[in-house]
């Protein structure tokens, strides 16, 4: 069956998918808003437990990775294949740094017994429980998206290399990039709302 390529349609589809993702997190932000409103003091105190330094590093890393994805689109469109691959590689490296940081961040919390369902956590004040639950749930879901995004970008990188994504046909790269920016976009809100409310 002969299929006409429709880049505009593909992008529209991707944007709609992004809307669903935004609203998926939107549900969580609503819970956050309600709980923060109810327990604002305890949220402030609990946030001291988070490592704002790691949070900042991860913010910078994600912003950088977003920029490089965007640049790789420029590169591919200009026909600079090597650069295109390289930019995505940098993005993936950033994702790696983010994950390593997350590993240490979460690892530390787990080691002191601070995780949902732990005895210690259930014994805390209500506001604390909810803060940490939200923290784990939101950053957890975000990390899942980051991992999914990394897998997508890896595929895209290979396809740039073998040339099936090229100057004339790169909507896949563009859509993959959109997804990656979404991951960044969510972090832009998570970071101040979780780490910076002390």
């Amino acid at each position: 069956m002969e299929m006409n390529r429709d880049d505009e349609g593909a992008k529209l589809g991707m944007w709609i998918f992004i809307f669903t993702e935004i609203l998926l997190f939107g549900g969580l932000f609503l819970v956050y808003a309600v709980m923060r409103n109810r327990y604002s003091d305890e949220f402030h105190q609990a946030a001291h437990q988070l490592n704002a330094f790691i949070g900042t590093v991860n913010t910078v890393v994600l912003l950088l990775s977003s920029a490089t994805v965007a640049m790789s689109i420029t590169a591919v469109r200009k026909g600079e294949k090597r650069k295109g691959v390289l930019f995505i590689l940098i993005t993936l490296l950033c994702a790696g740094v983010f994950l390593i940081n997350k590993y240490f961040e979460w690892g530390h919390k787990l080691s002191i017994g601070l995780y949902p369902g732990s005895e210690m956590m259930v014994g805390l004040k209500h506001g604390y429980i909810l803060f940490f639950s939200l923290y784990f749930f939101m950053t957890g879901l975000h990390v899942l998206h980051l991992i999914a995004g990394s897998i997508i970008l890896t595929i895209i990188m290979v396809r740039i290399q073998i040339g099936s994504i090229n100057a004339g046909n790169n909507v896949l790269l563009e859509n993959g990039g959109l997804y990656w920016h979404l991951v960044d976009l969510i972090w832009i809100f998570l970071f101040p709302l979780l780490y910076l409310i002390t």
Partner: protein
Amino acid sequence: MAETITHSYLENTGRYKGILAWLTSTDHKRIGLMYMYAMMVFFIVGVLLGELMRLELFRPGQQFYSAQTYNGIFTIHGIIMIFTVVIPGLAAVFGNFCMPLLIGARDVAFPRLNLFSWYLYILGAAIALSSQFLGNGPPDTGWTFYAPYSIQTHTNVVAAVFGAFVLGFSSILTGLNFIVTIHRLRAAGMTFFRMPLFPWSLYATAWIQVLATPIVGITLLMVIAERWLRIGFFDPSLGGDPILYQHLFWIYSHPAVYIMILPAMGVITEIIPTFAQRRVFGYKAIALSSLAIALVGYFVWAHHMYTSGMSITARWVFSLLTFLVAVPSAIKVFNWVTTMYKGSISVKPPFLFALGFIFLFMIGGLTGLSLGSLATDIHVHDTSYVVAHFHYIIFGGVGFAFFAALHYWYPKMYGRMYNFRRANIAFGFLFVGFNLLYFPQFVIGIMGMPRRYFDYLPQFTLGHQLSTIGGFILLIGIIIMLVNLFSKKGVKAPDNPWGGKTLEWTIPSPPPVENFDELPVITGEPYYFE
């Protein structure tokens, strides 16, 4: 390609034979039928579960099984009917089958994604049904999974909830596909205001699917996390708020009502002008009211929560908003009726079902007003008045519209006609049975019969007995209808058996694989009867 165009989509010409040829097909028409077959199976199971409840309720006291079994049955009845039958509903079946035909396209925008949605649908349904057989017994929360009970009960809530999550994902992908299809693949010259009204309603529906479903998705994940990890969002003993669950749930589930009913209104809007041989009255009003319903429908969810203990202000605000959403619905009803006025009406089965729809939907809608109004709702909340109301809307409305659409497009789908007389008889049984089944429940509801109860006081006996009798008359109607349609082949159908004016009637019945030999060019409005 020129060669495949001559083959009907029902013939297998590809690599695979038999059922595999269907399971691997990305043809929107086949996917539509695949949805339909799966849905019919679920629907029949759901109906039988409903009858099982009606039997138990025939007399006060315990008849056949325990109260806990009753709890399990109404829960799975609700889950099956809502998540696997009416939410995919007309959009998945007739949207898939007809929408590309109606807008003059060869397929949807993303055919493979479309097939993937179907598999997700089957997967989700399988997971939801597995809740009956795995774990600690069937869930007993009702299809609404209200916290905190849903996080406390030992029954297998997780499977049901996760199944609903997957089904939601399927629904999102269908919606996404339809929006892009309608934006990108309309035939040349078909502006938005030259598009038939069924695609219009699907367009509005698709936006709700895309924008509301993620909220319930995340909410259901939270319920699972509550059960496994005690995150405490909805658990008051950990500081959470059970009412927050209700908000999140209804932020989706009220708009979901419009996911069900909008496509139903859409097919009725196709059927009425065809059988009245008159152009639709108020085309633009109908088209735009679909969008208005979709939009306003987003902001009325808390009318399900008047008695939950939310703030007084919120109660009257939501009551007010609820009345607003009644306006566009009423516009549609008036326009249907006006379309018929002075038309040359031929009462064929699809039209009969469409009339049935209007009647039942109006009863459902008018009783809905008394539920949307704060003061009266408090009296009848959680009584069988509510059960009657929503069955009038989703069964009398969506269900009858589904039957209408089936009788309307059946000749196009299969290239065969069916027996009109038997279809009319089936309609008679369905209509009478339906009203006998649900109308008494309005009455006993007002008298105080609570919902989701397996036992009742003696004064409700008459109502329940009428209701059960009605249930079985209805069942007979369903059987006659299905036997009539699917038991033996009727005579060959012409391309345009009803004298319809939309594009699907310009191509052979059944349509060829890629629908149109040459894509049509549109020069005028869709319903140009004169």
